[in-house]
């Protein structure tokens, strides 16, 4: 799985590459994917094979690590419907494949989950789980839990109703589907549902917290990360922002959008839910990763999940009960003043509320959040969470005409700009117990790659201006870097090769929402495109071209 383990720590026990040896890292071999869009996937290594899945057209390559140069063992081309490109909101990315019991599982942009024989690449089953005709697409990496493949949809922008679906790993048949909005029966809320906060305990809140029928087009898609605790037998994931904009159209909490769910892995029944951003105003999806850790808090060991949210806070949540133990800001935040631990709700700042025709300056974090999808890593050796993230604010001013399906629309003219300090990204080592940063590295562009922590006390991440970096896990001191061909928005991994040596791998290839100015390519003169993101990324083309390439590094 892309996150290394069910706890999603992205921590590897490998330690040949460590703070002493990492400066000797050399390029071992490379592989071109032939695709120019954003490469957000993690390579996957099982035995002597590396598997990579490309952005649309979602080709899955198996590379033979047992032979010099890692030749292609087989390639599987699903040929997804080209029209799926038209329903992907923010570049046609894919976040990776998963492995279990001799099979590779991955999703295609046109809503197919596919199981392949890991040895031969033969298709075992191919299940259509969504419909591009309704605006659904799929970009997330599946998580396999026991005998189930968990997958979710994308497309909140299209009025899609979000869901998490469990497929039988053997047959591809749907075992259960949990919607994010609607009646309790659809959300799989039953007698086992014990949310921590009182406001979440009434029946059918997925209907009553919306205007009539609006939940049917309410968003809450599941395009991010899933974690699993085998002791509690619970899976954890977050849901995306509600639709539609504008928020005045949907008075109420809009449950269960921008919400963390804990569900029984076998039945899908919800155990608890925690709505991070009730009645979201800023496109603050709740889909970011949930890193499972056991931390000593107030003198006793707590089973927690760490959730760095788009809204700018790192949540420390009791993963058995859904109680928020703490929530501290890791970026400059103006939209809220804090998280009320009595209710779990953010304390909103009235003057930052967007409204149609209203001018609102200094909205921090901007729509991509303090941190977007880019997954953090947790080292049990340092007790620190390593956060690649953004430092972006936005303003909404004036009215702009847009056009879709032959119909004119109007919206606020959104422009993003760098947050305090002028650097648009940051890489932060975060102490979740103290609720404070230990060190920070400023980055020119949003740090849009995943992070990797190792037992060698080295942390890896990549930047959009093409640097792949290794830093000291305790100090943040830069130990090694390599300039790759295109900006990095992928997820670094490490593995022990068939030769017994440790390697580090990363897919480069700029794109995604932040990198669309290069991979789109969008017109840099139109600052408001990609929802105002282009305004703050106009210089990216000076630093990188598009182009997908795998880089693998090792010690000589």
């Amino acid at each position, binding site marked *: 799985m892309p996150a290394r383990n069910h706890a999603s720590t992205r921590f590897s026990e490998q330690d040949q590459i460590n703070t002493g040896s990492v400066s000797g890292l050399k390029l071992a071999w490379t592989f071109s994917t032939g695709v120019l869009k954003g490469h957000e996937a993690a390579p996957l290594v099982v035995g002597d094979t590396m598997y990579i899945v490309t952005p649309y057209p979602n080709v899955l390559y198996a590379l033979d690590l047992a032979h010099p140069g890692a030749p292609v063992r087989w390639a599987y081309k699903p040929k997804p419907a080209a*029209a799926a490109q038209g329903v992907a909101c923010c570049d046609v990315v894919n976040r990776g494949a998963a492995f279990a019991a001799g099979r590779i599982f991955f999703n295609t942009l046109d809503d197919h989950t596919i199981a392949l024989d890991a040895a031969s690449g033969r298709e075992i089953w191919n299940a259509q789980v969504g419909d591009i005709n309704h605006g659904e697409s799929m970009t997330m990496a599946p998580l396999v839990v026991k005998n189930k493949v968990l997958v979710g949809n994308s497309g909140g922008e299209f009025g899609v109703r979000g869901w998490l679906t469990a497929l039988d790993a053997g047959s591809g048949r749907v075992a259960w589907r949990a919607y994010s909005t609607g009646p309790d029966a659809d959300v799989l809320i039953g007698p086992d549902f014990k949310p921590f906060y009182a406001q979440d305990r009434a029946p059918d809140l997925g209907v009553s917290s919306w205007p009539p029928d609006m939940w049917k087009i309410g*968003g809450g898609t599941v395009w991010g990360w899933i974690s699993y605790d085998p002791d509690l037998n619970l899976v954890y994931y977050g849901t995306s922002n509600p639709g539609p904009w504008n928020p005045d159209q949907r008075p109420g909490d809009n449950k269960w959008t921008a919400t963390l769910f804990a569900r029984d892995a076998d039945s899908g029944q919800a155990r608890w839910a925690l709505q991070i951003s009730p009645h979201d105003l800023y496109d603050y999806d709740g889909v970011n990763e949930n890193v499972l850790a056991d931390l000593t808090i107030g003198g006793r060991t707590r089973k927690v999940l760490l959730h760095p949210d788009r809204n700018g806070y790192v949540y420390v949540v009791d993963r058995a009960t859904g109680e928020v133990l703490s929530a501290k800001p890791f970026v400059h935040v103006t939209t809220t003043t804090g998280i009320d631990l009595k209710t779990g709700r953010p304390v909103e700042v009235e003057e930052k509320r967007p409204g*149609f025709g209203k001018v609102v300056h200094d909205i921090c974090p901007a729509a991509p959040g303090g941190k977007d999808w880019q997954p953090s890593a947790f080292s049990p050796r340092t007790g620190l969470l390593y956060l690649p993230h953004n430092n972006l604010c936005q303003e909404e001013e004036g009215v702009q005409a847009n056009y879709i399906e032959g*119909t*004119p629309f109007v*919206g606020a003219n959104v422009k993003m700009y760098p947050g305090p300090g002028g650097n648009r990204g940051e890489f932060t080592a975060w102490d979740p117990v103290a609720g404070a940063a230990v060190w920070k590295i400023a980055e020119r562009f949003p740090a849009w790659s995943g992070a990797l922590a190792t037992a060698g006390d080295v942390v890896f991440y990549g930047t959009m201006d093409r640097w792949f970096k290794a830093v000291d896990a305790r100090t943040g001191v830069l130990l090694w870097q390599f300039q790759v061909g295109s900006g990095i928005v992928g997820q670094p991994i490490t593995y022990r090769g068939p030769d017994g040596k440790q390697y580090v791998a990363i897919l480069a290839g700029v794109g995604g929402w932040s990198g669309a100015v290069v991979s789109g390519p969008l017109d840099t003169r139109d600052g408001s495109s990609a929802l105002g993101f282009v305004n703050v990324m106009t210089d990216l083309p000076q630093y990188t071209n598009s182009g997908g390439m795998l880089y693998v590094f090792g010690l000589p």
Partner: protein
Amino acid sequence: MSSAFPERRATSLLPAVTAICAIACAGGDARRAAPPVRTLRVCADPNNLPFSNQCGEGFENRIAELIARDRGAVLSYTWWAQRRGFFRSTLGEGRCDVVLGVPTTFERVLATSRYYRSSYVFLSRRDRGLNVRSFDDPVLRTLRVGVQIVGADYANAPPAHALSRRGIVANVVGFDVYGDYARESPPARIVTAVAKGDVDLAVVWGPLAGYFARRQPVPLDITTVAPATDGVLPFAFDISMGVRRGNQALRDELDEVIHRRRADIDAILDDYGVPRVGAPGES
């Protein structure tokens, strides 16, 4: 044929569209076998009447043909569903040189001068005798009002904004503007909902209302939203053709044709029942 939709699965968009076209018309490829002197490359939605479809039955198809004939060019289409990313994937990636319909103020393209101006309209069954003209009509607080909704793109249809800023929410029925793309002309569903009585009234973009109102089994009334603005919110829009930024030459050429063939373009728009309004101060 230059198609954005390879035929692969029963679930992909093309087979559904093809089936509709096979019934509705005999072949839709606008390209001819003769060696082209010049090609006018258009990107258009293959399933979005009254604007365009793959059989060439929309008014944008007809206007594109008019322009191509006028310039001695042959027409080639890249079919691409007009959803989020449409302009990025079509004009932006060089698949074509012109898109027939954009708001004149649309920043992502270089727009020609407008070739029509239309407005959002109130649409209701004639036998209801509602006669709603303004968003300030108190009856809007009690009727079931249909309105098209888009997702979290920081944008929405002007009627959606106008209703919500008046607190008219609970009696509003949202229609997904994208609709079900497996069906013919997905956005039309809001018009049929008025005819069937699923909603009492709907606020719909003029060209969509004008075209589909004629095709319902009961007479529908179309009333232009008045006044034409609601604070900073416009209900009427100038519509132009869009070319890639920097392509001044093609823009100027299209402008000249739009000006000279004004009467022919108006005749096509009349054929499709596109309600037109004058510019501020004109009507």
